[in-house]
């Protein structure tokens, strides 16, 4: 043995310590060995075989859902009897197989364990039998007063069966008062049609026929009942392979999804919108010979007079010339929150431009029930006068979302009897004497009718989880009928479904998801100008005060999705804020009050005040402060209570969507919003490219074609010219791939888990600001930098060209995420599923691993769907799946069809052809990674006449 120095001896000593530890460890392991028994697991097959059920294969059921004053057809994926994922029903003309983020998130709402679970009478737990007795007694007592003392408040009223039941109720008790109330409904549009046509009508827009559209704060691609139809129509006219391109102008106070993707967007004060529309009307009449009635022209000229001509004259002239050049192929559309008279003027203008009957039609209104905040005022007046003694609130949360000047909570408590039917024990449930849990649309029978009057049967995917009841159940109990909702829906359609006998027709309607397609019997009446002219004359002139503008909330819409964690964590399309809301202010206002994002301001209106954090928003009008309604709930689920600010108190019945601000003050506090993106400038690196098209003849813009990637098969092309940034893809991805929510603090720390994010950048200055959105997911690089650095071999390339992620091998070094230039990888810092309750787990997709703590994850191109497609193809004897047989979740949801996925080995596949476009480029192509995701640049179809 050599003489060792101290250092070597030290080494020896360390070795032996390690050996001792090893020995100890091994002995411990050995001592466990005899205890190695498999834990006993059970397989519990059903007692009776379910129809069509094959173990391990999902079934799809057609159903439908009413939302935002419209109805959408759904295909719901069900695994072993529980629904897991919502897709659009391709047979339904309203959404044609596509979905929005709200529709996707419905399945999470179904499993929300905080939903109401039992009947409650004044805080005491009761059962449905007790509620039924109470309703029957109420029904008996109404007979003597002809129903005068009863008021009914409905929500999202699109069901023919409910309508029939309300009619039956009115036949029995003629003086029952029926109201419909939603925070954001079409009551002002209804009023506009009454002004213009003398009757309540529903406008149907054919966006796919519109060459030139001028919108006035009309966010039709965003939070709007028409959004899916509009997105489809808009995108169909932006398909450059078709050789044509539409041009959308947006005039709005706050940047919206629609404004962001428009070809021209003009910032405009809320109070000025009417003046710009009037100026447009005046120019169309004076310079382009569009004939409008004389009294209207006089009124229009007066209102337009207040406009700043230096800014608007050229813009208005350019729009007018474009509209006049596209008569019968254009559309002027005014947002549903604008005053009725402005909307009515747009209807007059569309008629004069020959658009009525071409790009827009009118349909008979679904129901004549009074709606909007005026209806709610009638209700409260009735209770105050003592005429209304019993109130039945069928769905919704009117106490929370009523305008601030209606003391609905107190009045419902004061009434002799108030009954609430709702999904949650919310503000209204607390104010009412009785609360009945409502069945979710995915767990109840029903029917809905879309705006275009396409009817669908709603069929349950699962029995009510928490014993919910439907509005039809409540109305039947009131009428003393003992029918189920199922029988009631059947009897509604008994006389219509007659082909080959009712049973066959009923089964067919259930299978198809639509009863009949849209008919052509439109109610296109000639408009009347007198009342419009008269009301235009009384429009107030442009004021110089600040205005508060109330918009729907991207997360919770009007508050109804307040407890939906998916929606809270899906970044709002423009400001990218999650978990909360804020007041959007212009940079000028921010400078004036020395505010930065997250500083709180106190807004005063209608004698009340609310403190809210600000979001300094480019493109925001200087004197318009836009706030979203639907957050800051006080009662309801835990997520609903934890987030945001309630701005309903600032609204009034007469100014439900926009009110003069009585004061803005800087508060001392700060509430930073959790945002997923904080930098919105591209710093000259152009991850999103845009091409400008000014000549109508120029079809495909010139550019460098992307080279093909290696031998692998699958690739994706995302046409940014069709991406609105709505977020449906991100939500579909979350639902499909079991992506966890991290909560507000997690987002603050940058730990959000979305595999697919939507990056958003701005283009232009404040006055003409446009948005550019880019969905970014794992780019499935051919030379993936993440794979080279994984110490565990947990990410590797497949012969299909996918960068596979193997969770069970991942040790959580996070090297891959550090080496990913796209930040496409997400890390599970915690066991996000550990605390998730059992009902919520029913939503999980059984085909995708639920990741545990310490594991990296990322977009897999929905490899579970690819594998299924391959197995299907093999079983059918095909070599490889047919083009279009495999859809990724994002692709399937995308309302505009901007995402194309497929096999590059197939030279005729859609993805191969789309990739040939001259607009194609790869993200960070200079790195030579061979991304399998190719983007096609945005097209701006600019009008050369518009000054820049």
């Amino acid at each position: 043995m050599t003489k060792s120095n101290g250092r070597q001896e030290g080494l020896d000593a360390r070795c032996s310590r390690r050996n001792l530890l090893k020995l100890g460890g091994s002995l411990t392991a050995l001592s466990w060995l005899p205890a190695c028994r498999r834990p006993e697991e059970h397989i519990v097959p059903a007692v009776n075989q379910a129809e069509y059920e094959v173990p391990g294969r999902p079934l799809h059921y057609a159903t439908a859902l009413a939302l935002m004053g419209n109805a959408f057809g759904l295909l719901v994926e069900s695994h072993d009897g529980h629904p897991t994922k919502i897709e659009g029903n391709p047979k339904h003309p309203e959404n044609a197989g596509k979905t929005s983020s709200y529709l996707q998130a419905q399945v999470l709402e179904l499993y929300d364990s905080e939903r109401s679970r039992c009947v409650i009478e004044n805080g005491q737990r009761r059962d449905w039998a007790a509620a039924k007795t109470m309703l029957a007694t109420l029904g008996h007592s109404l007979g003597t007063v002809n129903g005068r003392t009863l008021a009914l408040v409905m929500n999202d009223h699109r069901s023919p069966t409910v309508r029939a039941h309300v009619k039956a109720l009115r036949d029995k008790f003629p003086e029952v008062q029926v109201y419909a109330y939603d925070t954001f409904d079409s009551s002002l549009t209804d009023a506009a049609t009454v002004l213009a046509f003398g009757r309540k009508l529903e406008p149907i827009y054919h966006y796919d026929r519109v060459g030139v559209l001028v919108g006035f704060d009309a966010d039709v691609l965003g939070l709007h009942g028409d959004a899916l139809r509009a997105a489809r129509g808009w995108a169909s006219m932006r398909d450059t392979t078709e050789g044509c391109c539409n041009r959308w102008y947006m005039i709005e106070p706050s940047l919206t999804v629609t404004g962001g993707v428009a070809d021209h967007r003009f910032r405009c004060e809320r109070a000025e919108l009417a003046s710009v529309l009037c100026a447009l009307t005046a120019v169309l009449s004076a310079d382009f010979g569009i004939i409008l009635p004389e009294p209207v022209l006089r009124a229009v000229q007066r209102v337009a007079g207040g406009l700043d001509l230096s800014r608007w004259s050229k813009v208005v002239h350019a729009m007018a010339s474009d509209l006049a050049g596209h008569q019968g192929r254009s559309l002027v559309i005014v947002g549903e929150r604008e005053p009725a008279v402005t909307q009515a003027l747009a209807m007059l203008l569309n008629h004069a431009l020959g658009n009525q009957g071409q790009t827009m039609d009118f349909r008979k209104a679904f129901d004549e029930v009074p709606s909007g905040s005026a209806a709610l005022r009638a209700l409260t007046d009735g209770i105050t006068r003592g005429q209304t003694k019993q109130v039945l609130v069928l769905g919704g949360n009117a106490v929370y979302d009523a305008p601030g000047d209606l003391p609905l909570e107190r009045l419902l408590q004061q009434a002799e009897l108030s009954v609430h039917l709702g999904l949650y024990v919310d503000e209204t449930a607390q104010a009412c004497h009785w609360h009945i849990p409502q069945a979710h649309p995915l767990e109840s029978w029903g029917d809905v009718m879309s705006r275009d009057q396409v009817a669908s049967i709603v069929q349950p995917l699962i029995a009510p989880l928490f014993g919910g009841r439907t509005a039809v159940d409540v109305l039947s109990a009131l009428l003393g009928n003992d029918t189920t909702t199922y029988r009631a829906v059947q009897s509604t359609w008994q006389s219509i479904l007659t082909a080959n006998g009712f049973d066959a027709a009923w089964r067919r309607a259930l299978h198809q998801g639509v009863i009949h397609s849209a008919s052509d019997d439109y109610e296109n009446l000639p408009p009347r100008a007198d009342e419009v002219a008269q009301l235009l004359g009384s429009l107030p002139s442009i004021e110089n005060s600040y205005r508060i503008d109330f918009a729907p909330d991207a997360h919770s819409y009007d508050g109804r999705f307040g407890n939906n964690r998916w929606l809270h964590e899906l970044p709002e399309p423009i400001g990218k804020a999650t978990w909360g809301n804020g007041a959007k202010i212009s940079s000028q206002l921010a400078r004036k009050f020395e505010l930065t994002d997250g500083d709180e301001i106190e807004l005063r209106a209608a004698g009340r005040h609310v403190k809210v954090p600000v979001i300094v928003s480019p493109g925001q009008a200087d004197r318009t402060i836009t706030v979203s309604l639907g957050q800051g709930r006080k009662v309801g689920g835990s997520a609903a209570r934890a987030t945001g600010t309630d701005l309903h108190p600032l609204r009034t019945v007469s100014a439900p969507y926009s009110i003069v601000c009585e004061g803005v003050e800087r508060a001392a506090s700060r509430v930073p919003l959790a945002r997923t993106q904080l930098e919105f400038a591209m710093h000259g690196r152009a991850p999103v490219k845009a091409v400008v098209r000014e000549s109508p003849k120029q079809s495909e813009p010139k550019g460098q074609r992307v080279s093909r990637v290696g031998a692998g098969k699958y690739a994706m092309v995302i046409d940014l010219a069709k991406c609105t940034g709505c977020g449906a893809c991100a939500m579909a991805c979350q639902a499909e791939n079991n992506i966890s929510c991290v909560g507000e603090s997690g987002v603050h720390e940058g730990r959000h888990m979305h595999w697919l994010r939507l990056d958003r950048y701005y283009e232009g200055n404040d006055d003409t600001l446009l948005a550019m959105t880019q969905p970014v997911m794992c780019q499935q690089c051919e030379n993936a930098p993440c794979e080279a650095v994984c110490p565990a071999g947990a990410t590797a390339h497949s012969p299909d060209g996918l960068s596979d992620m193997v969770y069970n091998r991942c040790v959580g070094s996070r090297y891959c995420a550090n080496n990913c230039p796209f930040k496409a990888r997400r890390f599970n810092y915690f066991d996000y599923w550990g605390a998730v309750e059992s009902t919520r787990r029913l939503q999980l997709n059984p085909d995708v691993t639920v990741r545990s703590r310490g594991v990296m994850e990322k977009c897999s191109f929905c490899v579970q769907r690819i594998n299924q497609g391959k197995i299907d193809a093999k079983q059918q004897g095909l070599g490889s799946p047919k083009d279009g047989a495999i859809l990724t979740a994002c692709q399937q949801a995308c309302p505009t069809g901007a995402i194309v996925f497929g096999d590059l080995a197939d030279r005729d596949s859609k993805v191969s052809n789309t990739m040939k476009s001259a607009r194609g480029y790869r993200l960070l192509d200079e790195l030579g990674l061979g991304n399998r995701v190719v983007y096609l640049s945005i097209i701006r179809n600019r009008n050369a006449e518009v000054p820049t």
Partner: protein
Amino acid sequence: MKIERPPAGEVASRASPVEPPRLLGVLRETKAARMRLLAALAMGVALVSLAGAALGYYGTDSNIVVGYRPKQPVDFSHKLHVADLGLDCRLCHLGAEAGANAGLPTTQTCMNCHSKVRTDSVALLPLRATYAEGRAIPWVRVHNLPDFVYFDHRAHVSAQVECAYCHGQVEQMVQVEQVKPLSMGDCIECHQEPRKYVTSLSQPLTYANQNHDASVVLKTAHETERDISPPLHCSGCHR
């Protein structure tokens, strides 16, 4: 090993360098102590290797799960039903051809026959009782793959892999037991050379015919035209 001398200033700044106390440090003094240390080390290494070998051999799936034969709530004999009576696997495991999971039969499937056959059997008491009460039978799972493995029966059956290749001769079992470890090695073995294990298309799958024996089932399929390309990449089974 050469140790670089630290710069003078650094040495000066250090107080008298004290050797940190080490485990077994005292034994350094004598040669005998060093020998004892070496012996202990050698013994330690030997023990560890032995333990490792034992763990490696006995701790693997082939020793832990092979032979797993749990008691089932109803004494169902595959031997009686398949070998003696000649029933087809797919009669009860109807997902084997069409779905990812072969699945177990519903009680209703059992009762299709047993409402007429052997209605007074004592062994079938739990079956009749649960069916009458509408309770499901908690069968004990025998073949269990980890949750991160997505095995699809449909893909394998349509590629003509015999049930017996993974499950053994179930038709001979009174009580079902696991015969293969069903480890990743088992999967890869077949996925690398699938032609050794799939049955010819001209020869229908036997679905546990009582007359077959493994050598017939697993014979090489001489069909060059067949596209058998089982995945060997990660996402083929893990996703």
